[in-house]
């Protein structure tokens, strides 16, 4: 479904964020990317939907090279890929409904959208999505009046409005407490399993990775240092763990099968 070939990103200030990264994502996967802050997770996710322009390499989406597409073409690709953010990135002063409707912008012409004129079908769809994520009581509130977990649900609802084939989630639970983290991730899991959406998600906590990931990629200083399946990560050794998280890192996930906590 998605193929990343030799992707490299060097920022204007000379920081090398990604070095020659290649991997393939198959339909229906729940791919988790792990790695320290600054290891290039966010850059990688943003390169996929071209919020960040890669320096070198190719991004192939459903057999089509989207590395250099522009304008209407890029717009059509972007609307197939939903994105969820660590800090939710809602427009604080707008209502929940307006934030959710914004997910439909990729399908709406500029002029009607400026006047907030969305089709009846879009409105119905919004209500369905809102019902599904259980935020129907909040729709007329301002986004910044909501709790963190509710805000992230609005973020997911916005992504769902795009009818996405894939969802990119950039540390979606890093700003939430563990209970909410599970609730948000199980929302994503449902989308993955029931709606067959492909999910690429970056995470920090190993226990969450073990619980939700169908496949794991480990990034360190912009290169892939680990790749493994669900069963692989359950058997992950300290050496591999330290390879990703650095020598000084300690495992935060607690006991893992076969290996005692450090």
């Amino acid at each position, binding site marked *: 479904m998605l193929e990343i070939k030799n992707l490299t990103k060097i920022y204007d200030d000379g920081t090398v964020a990604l070095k020659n990264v290649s991997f393939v994502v198959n339909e229906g996967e729940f791919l988790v990317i792990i790695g320290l802050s600054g290891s290039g997770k966010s850059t990688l996710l*943003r390169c996929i*939907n071209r*919020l960040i322009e890669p320096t070198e390499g190719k991004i192939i989406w459903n057999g089509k090279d989207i590395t250099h597409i522009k304008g209407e073409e890029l*717009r*059509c*690709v*972007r*609307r197939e*890929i*939903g*994105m969820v*953010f660590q*800090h*939710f*990135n*809602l*427009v*604080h*002063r*707008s209502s929940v409904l307006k934030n959710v409707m*914004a*997910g*439909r*912008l*990729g*399908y*709406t012409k*500029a002029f009607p*959208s*400026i006047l907030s004129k969305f089709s009846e079908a879009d409105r119905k769809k919004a209500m369905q999505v809102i019902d599904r994520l259980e935020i129907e009581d909040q729709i007329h509130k301002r986004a910044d009046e909501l709790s963190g977990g509710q805000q992230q649900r609005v*973020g997911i609802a*916005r*992504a769902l*409005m*795009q009818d996405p084939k894939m969802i*990119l989630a950039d540390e979606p639970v890093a700003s939430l407490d563990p209970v909410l983290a599970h609730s948000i991730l199980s929302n994503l899991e449902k989308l993955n399993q029931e709606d067959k959406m492909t999910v690429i998600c970056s995470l920090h906590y190993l226990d969450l990775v073990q619980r939700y990931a169908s496949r794991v990629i480990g990034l360190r200083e912009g290169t892939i240092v680990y790749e493994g399946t669900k069963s692989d990560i359950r058997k992950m050794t300290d050496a591999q763990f330290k390879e990703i998280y650095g020598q000084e890192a300690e495992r935060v996930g607690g006991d893992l099968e076969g290996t005692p906590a450090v």
Partner: protein
Amino acid sequence: MGKRKMNKQNLKAKEPQKPSFVPPFISSLLSMVIPGLGQILARAYSRGFIILASFFSIGGLLAWRIYQKGRRYKEIQTMVEKAFDLSPILLVITILFVLLYIWIIIDAYFAAKKSNRGSRSYGSGLMFFLLAVFFLLGWQIGDINIGEFFSQAGTALPTIGRLMWPWEKAIDRPEEIQIISARVLSPCQEQQIPQNEALEEEPYIIVSPTCGSPTEIDGTSGTEFAIVGGNFNTDQEIEIWWKDPNGNEFRQRQAGEYVKVTPDDEGNFQIAIIMPYRIISSTIEEKNLIWEVQARQLLSVGEAQLSAEFTLAVEKMIETIIIGMMATLFGVILSIPISFLAARNLMSENFFTKTVYYFVRTILNIVRSIEPLIWAIIATIVVGLGPFAGIIALTVHSIAALAKMYSEAIESIDQGPIEAIQATGANWTQTIVYAVIPQIIPPFVSFTIYRWDINIRMSTVIGFVGGGGIGFLLQQWIRLLDYRAAGIAVWFIAITVMILDYVSAEIREKYK
């Protein structure tokens, strides 16, 4: 240079001080020649430089003030004596200045001694003394006279009272002079004229006798008339006038004073007057020498109404508010495009945009640093006195101030929502409408209201330099010493500003 830098680092690290360059005695001697030099050479650098700079500036200021006071005298000694005479505080400062000099010399000795011992703590007494002398000099230069403030406050009170409570001037009562008259014949003839009679309801006067002769030019006193009046208003004085046979009216004077009488509680009065001296035109026929005695009283008639000053103040206050509003409107319209040019995040694309950014910022800073009052003076040169000049002045200043605030709001927008909206496949216009505008509207509204508030405040004083509005009126009334009218203007300004303060705070609170 390098050595000093090192020494500074030593100070910071609180390491022991290196020994003084010169022995204490020499240090003292050096400070005697140039105050502060001894301290500098004793490695108390900052202390030395402060002493050096303050000593010479105090000395210079003191010399200037003495010259100012005694400049009419050529000889220096008389000049100084006269100056001390006129302003005794200068003598005190001079004595303190000499003491300061001595203290500095002693201080240099101890500074060197302490440096040799490795200590770097010097007393702060000298520094306080320096400051004290400085502020005492400031007292003299500032012409501060607390005594005058309190002694003059008493005499200023009535004026201040008029300014603080001007409302008597706000209401006009239409008034009319009521004239009640009685006829008198002069000189006396056989044929008498009838005496007036007391009336029941209306005011009346009765003059007796009904004939007499005026005072002669040689000083022979005229006939004394007794006037009895009734049914007058009790709260107003009555003036006595005459109408001579020529038809000319004049006031009765007695012993140099105009004759006035206040009626009693029933509205009755009694007064005796002497018929005054008057040249009567010869064309008047002898037979008709009828004079008229008049009792005149000021009566208020009709409803009380707002005074001309009050209505003028209202009109000008409206004009003032309009000046502020128009200036804000123009300021907002013109500053929005400029603010985009002055936002760093939008203008850091390439060298050209960066140049524009710095150029716009510099211009804005210059324009903002010039007060609206100065802009108003410039505007009056161009468009003449009046509200338009005020609008121009406030607009110019508003553009500069608002563009800066707006551009800072643009600079501080959160990139997150922009990224998120872009990720949905939104195009440029949609991203601006959905992610940028919702973020900049609240600060824009808040800054605009704040500016509106400032502009209306400023428009109340912009009239002082000819920019129209109530300030112009206020300044005129103050110059005419019409403190009541000025007080009305002051009250209007205060009320408007208070209301504005509240409203603007409320609105801004909503848009936080």
